[in-house]
């Protein structure tokens, strides 16, 4: 790793700083989502996530109690209560929506019918009248408050305790693991054949694979589901594995073939001369050397299957027993969407497993280097 002999320290600084800036730029959007996933809906709408660590000013209104809450003090009628909750600080208050901060804390104003309203700094209000109150609903007191930064794990609680999430987690794993492993196996063999075996039509076949990369998923849904129904596979795990395998193969073959073409020719030739069969070459030489490529494709396929909702709803169905994680999260968000906090939280929960996989796989990405005998395509 420390191969760069004679590196100037100023260069190291430049590299460090520019790398840091790049990483920062790439992280900011996700950071926004992360911070937002700990805020509640009203706060998300009230201020930017980057301001969530400082106190924010918020306006709102509170209703006073009604005549039922009034008590008689010294012959006058009084309704008392507070306009603040939690750790808010009162900045100003008012009684009309148009002037929500017409009065400072501690001031008194007269509402019609000789009612007198005072709101104090600590948020307590006192509504006083000589005659008994008659009101069908409480008077509105508009408040302008500063709210200290507030974070909640409520969003995570709500998503994690969602009905059926555990089941969905298992379903997703059941879908994802075979749908990752099977295409890799099939593609590795095919890629080896395309890279190192001589046979007519090889170039054409390679190009066909590239061409198939572009087939839009949507055109395949109806014909394939019909095919599954006619074959008697119907909707189920077998169907979705086959579908994901089919859709993932072109990229897998393309990436792996390209990597394998770049493997050192001498190693393979000498193995052939030694009388190794193609299968032995594949198993003993190609597979171990291709590990970084296999690992990177595995990550991509895993991510794609993990985050997929479309293929799952079409080929697996979406009854309670069959729902995958993305399906449950969708249900949580509701048909009309708009719940940013749940979206943000869901995104982070569904990201967790793929990230673990990425970290676990990173070791193998490095292994290609340690093997020391691989060169780039």
């Amino acid at each position: 790793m420390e191969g760069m002999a004679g590196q100037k320290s100023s260069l190291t600084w430049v590299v460090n700083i520019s790398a840091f800036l790049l990483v920062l730029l790439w992280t900011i959007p996700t950071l926004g989502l992360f911070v937002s996933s700990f805020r509640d809906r009203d706060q998300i709408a009230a201020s930017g996530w980057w301001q969530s660590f400082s106190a924010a000013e918020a306006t709102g209104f509170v209703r006073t109690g009604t005549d039922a809450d009034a008590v008689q003090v010294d012959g006058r009628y009084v309704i008392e209560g507070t306009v603040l909750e939690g750790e808010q600080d009162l900045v100003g208050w008012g009684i009309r929506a148009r002037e929500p901060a017409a009065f400072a804390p501690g001031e008194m104003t007269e509402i019609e019918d000789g009612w007198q309203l005072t709101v104090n700094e600590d948020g307590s209000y006192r509504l006083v009248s000589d005659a008994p109150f008659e009101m069908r609903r409480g008077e509105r007191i508009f408040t302008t408050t500063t709210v200290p930064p507030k974070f909640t794990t409520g969003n995570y609680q709500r998503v994690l305790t969602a009905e059926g999430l555990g089941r969905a987690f298992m379903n997703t794993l059941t879908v994802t693991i075979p749908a990752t492993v099977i295409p890799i196996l099939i593609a590795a063999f095919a890629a080896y054949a395309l890279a190192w075996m001589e046979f007519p039509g090889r170039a054409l076949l390679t190009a066909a694979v590239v061409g198939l990369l572009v087939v839009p998923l949507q055109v395949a849904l109806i014909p394939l589901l019909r095919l599954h129904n006619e074959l008697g596979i119907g909707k189920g795990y077998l169907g979705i594995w086959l579908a994901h395998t089919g859709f993932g193969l072109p990229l897998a073959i393309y990436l792996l073939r390209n990597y394998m073409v770049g493997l050192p020719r001498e190693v393979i030739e000498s193995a052939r001369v030694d009388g190794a069969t193609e299968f032995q070459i594949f198993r003993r030489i190609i597979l171990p050397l291709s590990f970084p490529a296999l690992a990177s494709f595995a990550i991509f396929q895993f991510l794609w299957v993990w985050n997929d909702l479309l293929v799952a709803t079409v080929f697996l169905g979406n009854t309670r027993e069959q729902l995958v994680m993305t399906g449950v999260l969708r249900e949580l968000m509701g048909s009309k969407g708009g719940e940013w906090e749940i979206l943000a939280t869901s995104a982070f929960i569904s990201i967790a497993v793929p990230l673990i996989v990425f970290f676990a796989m990173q070791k193998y990405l490095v292994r290609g280097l340690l093997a020391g005998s691989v060169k780039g395509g």
Partner: protein
Amino acid sequence: MELFWLAVSTIAIGVFGCVAWFWGSNMVLDAVYPPRGPRAGDNIRKASMIRPWLFLGPAILFLGLYLVYPVFDSLWRSLHNSDGSRFVGPGNYIWALGDGKFRESMLNNMLWLLVVPALATLFGLIAAQLTDRLKWGNIGKSLIFMPMAISFVGAGVIWRFIYEYREAGETQIGLLNWIVTRLGGDPQIWLTLIPWNNFFLMIVLVWIQTGFAMVILSAALRGIPEETIEAAILDGASPLQVFFRIKVPQIMGTIAVVWTTITIVVLKVFDIVFVMTNGQWGTQVLANLMYDWMFRGTPDYGRGSAIAMVLMILVTPIMIWNIRNARKEGR
């Protein structure tokens, strides 16, 4: 727990089935044409004619059934009316040429094709090189890679926190508008700013795909033999020269692969546009237009398929380029 065992056993069966096929079929082939004995040469020749197809067999079966068959199905559909009951010949294609939204989509797709693969590959290469020899490189890589792991819907939300618009004077909750207002500008409705909104959408895809480019390119960079680089350094090459003269040419093949792959992702780009603008305000792209006609309102499968065919035809130049490449490598 029952479900768990079901899952485990099905996984085992699926994986075992694959391995069994490759191993078994090779055994059979070796048994039928043993590579020894009096006719060894003849047998090896015959076996090596058949063996590629054993290796390719399952892949061809899957590709044929899951991709080639739907392509022909759409070709057929694209020549028929909305529900496939009447042959209309090239009618759907003629309609497309005259349709304003289709032309807009073609134009936008071209723009996407130029910008996104170039930027994503470039940033990916820079990220791979910069983080490669840093102590915290792996963490940096993971962070750049993270967008890849977020679903498109999630990405849509993330970027709403960037592009969100509030009226001037109100608290901006979109980062970009907050910065703009801080600098004294007026807040903009970024996603409706024709034609710049296209670029705002492209940034999202670049942001996602850079992680892909970085992972592949970084594996390739690490594959460059140390001796080559050390030799260049000993010759007095500056780090920049090493990068551009030695490393980049060495991994040119991989760069081409990354470029091609992202180009194809761009051709299929759908989710981002669907989630963020649904092709309004002049941001329509082919894949989303196709989706519109296939599933929105009263579906017209004929037109949707015609658009899909155009999408697939657009990839032809890339295919030709790849055939040439494969031939060149074909020694």
